[in-house]
């Protein structure tokens, strides 16, 4: 954490003078200001630092057409199941590439949650906060990781790669906008990342320095919490403006761009890899849209046809580089889809049983936890509640879900206190 940028010490008058001196001497980006404006850490991040990669299959992925196929049953749909790299475990034929990395994953086929208000929004919130939305809002898991794991102040702790036309979401709740997801809508750089013409590079540095000096003066003899967060937001902004290529996926090799594919989710997965490599703590990729009330089979074929390969490629790459050892990967969706095939060949929302997938850091992979019955209408083994998964996601990266956030002087447990982690999934 930042330590001394805006405490109430009188030292600031001194440091301000020296800063001014440096600035006037024309020193660019070094000197006393270096303590506020770090250059981006370009090297690979250290192995021990924990990172998280989240895939959100938005709309509600069908468990039947993915991780819990039930071919040749009344509910099963037209697709076959195929063997995976884990002997005895079958996935739907719609995800052949993912099937090849199954040994790097743990599949939970027995997810469930109570129905909550707000349909998709509510269910999604339940999955990513571990708490019923009507009790919230609680911070989503990305902001939680940003708060608890991010130690690089110069990078956003939590970046969300979304389909185009998605705006920012206030997903940090009481953790504050500081930890809210930085949204890369359509995989594009954040808004307002280009310096306006009026400020050239040199002047740009000056204005940030002057701004900071003004903040230091203000923070003397005032409560400092506001100023700290404020300063930090500008430090990040200054860094991003200088390091826009962080978001530039075309800087990756042509070979990799081909491997991941030219469609959006391919580019987004490659961008996710790039951001993780650069040291971003939590990266989330949202893939639209699985809400197939109509033509479930066609739409899953189309969506998973896009998603399958880049997802598996990214898993493979993370494994090859050793990053999977310190990177937790989760693939979540707000709920599953009904066993019953609806009149328009669709499947509706289903919170009684669905599948999620975890892998990487801290996870016991290569297995399947829980089971549904022959035609997937109910869980018959080891039901896992969404609240338990939230705890598991915490434990996997070494966080204690029973520890607490301090909110306005009050302790709020990270995870729902009535739940606990799924031990079978953890190493």
């Amino acid at each position, binding site marked *: 954490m930042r330590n001394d940028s805006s405490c109430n010490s009188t030292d600031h008058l001194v440091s301000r003078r020296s800063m001014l001196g440096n600035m*006037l001497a024309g020193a660019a980006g070094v000197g006393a200001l270096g303590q506020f404006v770090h250059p981006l850490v370009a090297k690979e991040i250290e192995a021990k630092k924990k990172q998280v990669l989240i895939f959100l299959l938005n709309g509600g992925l069908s468990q039947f057409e993915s991780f819990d196929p039930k071919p040749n049953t009344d509910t099963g749909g037209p697709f076959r199941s195929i063997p995976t790299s884990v002997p005895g475990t079958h996935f739907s034929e719609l995800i052949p590439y993912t099937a090849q990395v199954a040994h790097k994953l743990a599949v939970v086929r027995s997810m469930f949650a109570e129905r909550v208000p707000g349909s998709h929004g509510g269910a999604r919130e339940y999955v990513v906060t571990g708490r019923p939305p009507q009790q919230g809002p609680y911070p989503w898991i990305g902001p939680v990781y940003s708060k608890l794991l991010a130690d690089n102040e110069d990078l956003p702790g939590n970046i969300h790669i979304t389909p185009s036309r998605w705006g920012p979401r206030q997903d940090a709740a009481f953790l504050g906008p500081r930890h809210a997801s930085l949204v890369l809508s359509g995989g594009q750089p954040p808004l307002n990342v280009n310096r306006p013409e009026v*400020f050239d590079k040199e002047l740009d540095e000056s204005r940030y320095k002057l*701004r900071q000096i*003004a903040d230091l003066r203000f923070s003397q*003899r*005032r409560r400092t919490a506001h100023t700290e967060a*404020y300063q930090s*937001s500008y430090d990040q902004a200054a860094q991003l403006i200088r390091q826009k290529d962080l978001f530039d996926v075309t800087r990756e090799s042509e070979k990799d761009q081909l491997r991941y594919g030219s469609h959006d989710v391919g580019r987004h997965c490659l961008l996710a890899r790039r951001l993780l490599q650069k040291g971003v703590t939590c990266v989330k990729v949202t893939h639209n849209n699985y809400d197939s009330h109509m033509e479930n089979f066609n739409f899953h074929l189309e969506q998973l046809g896009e998603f399958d390969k880049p997802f598996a490629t990214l898993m493979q790459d993370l494994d090859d580089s050793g990053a999977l050892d310190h990177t937790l990967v989760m693939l979540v969706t707000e709920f599953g889809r009904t066993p019953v095939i609806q009149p328009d060949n669709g499947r509706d929302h289903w919170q009684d049983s669905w599948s999620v997938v975890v892998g990487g850091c801290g996870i016991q992979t290569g297995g399947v936890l829980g089971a549904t019955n022959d035609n997937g209408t109910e869980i018959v083994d080891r039901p896992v509640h969404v609240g338990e998964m939230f705890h598991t996601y915490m434990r996997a990266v070494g966080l204690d879900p029973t520890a607490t956030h301090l909110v*306005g002087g009050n302790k709020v447990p990270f995870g729902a206190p*009535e739940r606990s982690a799924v031990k079978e999934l953890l190493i």
Partner: protein
Amino acid sequence: MVIYLTTRYRRFIRCVFVALMSIPVSSNAEDVPLHQLIDQHIDAMLVEQKLTAAVPSSDAEFLRRVYLDLTGTIPETQTARTFIEDSDAHKRTKLIDRLLASDSYDTHMAIVADVMLMERRPDKDVTTDEWRGYLAQSFAENKPLNILVAEILGADGVDEKLRPAAKFYLDRLVDKDVLVRDIGRLFLGVDLQCAQCHNHPDIDDYLHQHYHGLSVFVAGSKTFKQPDGKFVLQEEVMREVEFVSVFAPNKTSKTGPRILDTLMELPKVAEGDEYVEKPSRTVRSVLKVSLRKLLSERLPSDATPEFARAMANRLWAMVMGRGIVHPLDMHHSANLPSHPALLNALAERLMSMKYDVRGFLRELTLSATYQRSSFIPDGVDPAKLPEDSFAVANVKGLSPEQLFESLLVATGAAAIFEMQIDDAISEDSKAVAADDSEQPDSQETDAEKIAEARRLKRAARVDEFVTIFGGVPGQPEGEFSASLPQALFLANSETLSAWIPARLDNLTARLVALDDSTRFADELYLGVLTRFPEEEERTLINEYLESKRADRPKAVAALVWSLLASVEFRLNH
């Protein structure tokens, strides 16, 4: 099962200083002006807690604060200079009165009330524009707050004049659960949300029957689509609701309409004779005894003291930066007011003043408590000076609208902004012209249409700020916090980048033309921060400008930006 309700960062179990509840204040409180009464209560508590209060604010500090609180923007340079240099002993009182009488007060209060009541929900059946127009008119007339709320709670959307008031219901889709929760939170200061399924797990006073009792008032209300396509409210018979607790599923209870502990008697109506217009597909159903009307008569009135208490607390928080009950909608025994006697006094005065908002705000802003400095007293550890002591003026983040207006004033970019709007409108009309082979009749493009287009363009720019700086839709505005997208916006956005560089008569242009370094610094600091610079700041500016002589206009622009982007500008302190 233990349920931890953080509920929007709000919280419940805080240490309760019940012992502090009875503190002696002035014996005959009735005769004392409210602003003095406030100071008596606050000061007594400071003595009790052995806390040191901050010194009175400087004129500059007070001026900026009261401008932002009552008009939603910072003052112009000349206004600041005149006020600070004015030697009139009563200038603060005069300023408060002037601001309360200004048009800006009406529009600012309309925004405040809108954000409070609608919490930035997207528009549905009533536009924000119509709604704010109605609110601004209400504040201009100084419509008593109970009347305003009665209009809102009694609205059916049929009467053209009062149609905007129906936004509260219509834009919540007349959803019973949302309405019960929000009526409780906003007008009674209590959040009944989790009393919906059972008696509140943590808070004994939020009884299940409170929730369902309130729901009876709105449970019969539904939307009705008029032939003209507009949605209005209709009402069907509802006299009581049954409810079952999840903790005791076998036990069914009933309640009639109830506001917290007060059960309402309903006039007897013979069965089959309840309607003026019976429900049908084509006709809006109207009851002889409307429960919504009953709610609008009983809730915002002296008969429901919780209403005055909640309203007093909200107005207090608006200017003092924090409620006496805080969060504002969490009044219950585990979250007691910081100054219970003061809150009671405020509520009583609001009632005796007949819910006169302007008069009430006048008293609040006249108080020494309001007019304290935000500087922590020398030698005091800020960590030991709780915000709810009001020993020091609490800082508040500028709302998106306050930030927008203040940036516009500070940069002196009104004329540039008008040109931006002109450009945007002419872009639009070019696109239309290119689209349409038939040219629209130019006679028809009257002044009204242009004004409308300008207003929309302006609103779109403000919306840009709301998206980035505003709170979560459907939730109360959170406390001040900074984020990366906000910093990027202030640093690089097209909107702001057009206002800062020297152009026309904007601030940077005026500064560039000033050779005298003292006047330069004064103009800059008065314009942006509503104060004169300190000696150190003057030195800094001079040294900086000396070093950047090559391109003075750009150097000045960078300097202007640095103050606009400073935390001092971003906060109301």
